[in-house]
């Protein structure tokens, strides 16, 4: 009886250790994979059309979802912001509220979340399926390095697209806020823009947002290509990888956002 309970406790501890070891091993593999991608990324710039192709698939094709969601988020911000600000008689500050919340937080974060589910999952699916149908192995047999030929261009395509998409998201969001605030509700147009320009600093607010979206771009692209490359080469395995790409990307984006925000916007 005692022996049995002792052995079940040991089993429990072993399970915890097993999961931890597994996770650490995968993390280490991901870190080595990241280094490999960086080492072999020379080709994705020498043969630039590979990267341009990936920018088309992950950047240009995400334009629609980014622009539409940005517009609506800006419009909602305008409406909710006005609702709250007019209670304190400062509805002219609407422009500040919309612009600051978009450039600092919502632009990079929401654009990255959308990018992860629109482009990240597609990257994982493509690489995972190439692995499942043994195309990656075939490339290796033909002395073509699959990381240099397939993975690195996809990674850099994502890294380049992400800051541009985030900037587009913020810009169209500000326009959405302008549509609702000034055109629909009737906040004074001059105050809307001048107060916005008075409080939004380029280096402090806009540039920090760009830095954020660049970091998110690296994280999401790395997770997407790694999960695809590491996929179990079956139909089930690829679907599991896609699921993990979306979940891990979302968690990484939100956690990184907290870390970056606490470094960038500490008081002052």
């Amino acid at each position, binding site marked *: 009886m005692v022996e049995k309970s002792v052995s079940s406790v040991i089993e429990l501890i072993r399970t915890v250790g097993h999961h931890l070891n597994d996770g650490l091993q995968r993390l280490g593999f991901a870190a080595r994979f990241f280094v490999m991608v960086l080492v072999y990324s020379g080709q994705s710039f020498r043969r630039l059309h590979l990267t341009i192709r990936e920018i088309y698939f992950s950047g*240009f094709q995400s334009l629609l979802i980014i622009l539409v969601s940005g517009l609506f988020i800006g419009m909602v911000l305008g409406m909710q912001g006005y609702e709250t600000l007019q209670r304190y008689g400062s509805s002219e500050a609407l422009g500040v509220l919309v*612009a600051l919340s978009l*450039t600092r937080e919502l632009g990079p974060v929401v654009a990255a979340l959308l990018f992860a589910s629109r482009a990240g999952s597609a990257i994982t699916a493509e690489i995972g399926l190439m692995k499942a149908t043994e195309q990656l192995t075939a490339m290796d047999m033909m002395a073509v390095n699959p990381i240099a030929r397939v993975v690195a261009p996809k990674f850099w395509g994502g890294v380049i697209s992400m800051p541009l998409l985030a*900037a587009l998201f913020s*810009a*169209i969001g*500000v326009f959405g806020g302008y549509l609702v605030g000034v055109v629909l509700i009737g906040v004074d147009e001059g105050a809307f823009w001048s107060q916005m*320009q008075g409080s939004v600093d*380029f280096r402090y607010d806009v540039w920090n947002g760009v830095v954020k979206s660049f970091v998110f771009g690296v994280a999401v692209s790395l997770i997407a290509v790694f999960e695809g490359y590491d996929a179990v080469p079956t139909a089930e395995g690829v679907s599991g990888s896609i699921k993990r790409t979306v979940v891990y990307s979302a968690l990484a984006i939100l956690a990184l956002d907290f870390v970056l925000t606490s470094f960038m916007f500490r008081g*002052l």
Partner: protein
Amino acid sequence: MSRKLLDLWVGFFVLLGFASLLFLALRVGNLSSANFAETYQLTAKFDNIGGLKVRGPVKSAGVVVGRVTEIRFDPESYEAVTTLTIDSRYRFPKDTFASILTAGLLGEQYIGLDAGGDEKMFKSGDVVAKTQSAVVLEKLISQFMFNKASEGPDKK
């Protein structure tokens, strides 16, 4: 898809991205107005700066002529020392009065410069001698209360 069409769309996408960044910089942010071409620095000491912040505006007659670039505490005179960076297009006489004012009832605080009549103008690094501190609401209210209290018995 042909290579040319692909290049076209990607170029379109990248240009659109940079255009929106430019929009954020110039229309949303203050890149166009914050950086004055040539500037000079003045120092002003205040007993109390209230809620003045670094990057706060310096205005004269309501027009932004510069920015507050540094605020520090002088441990010897127990005063706040502010550094003002002023656009060198604007020259101010030596007896200019600097005061901390508030935009609106609860708005942001800024430094107002009231030009005097002196012949000599400020040079870079000069100290603004005449300053007036921020109005602290609590002190104002307590002053009012004391006045009321001292008036109190007479009225009866």
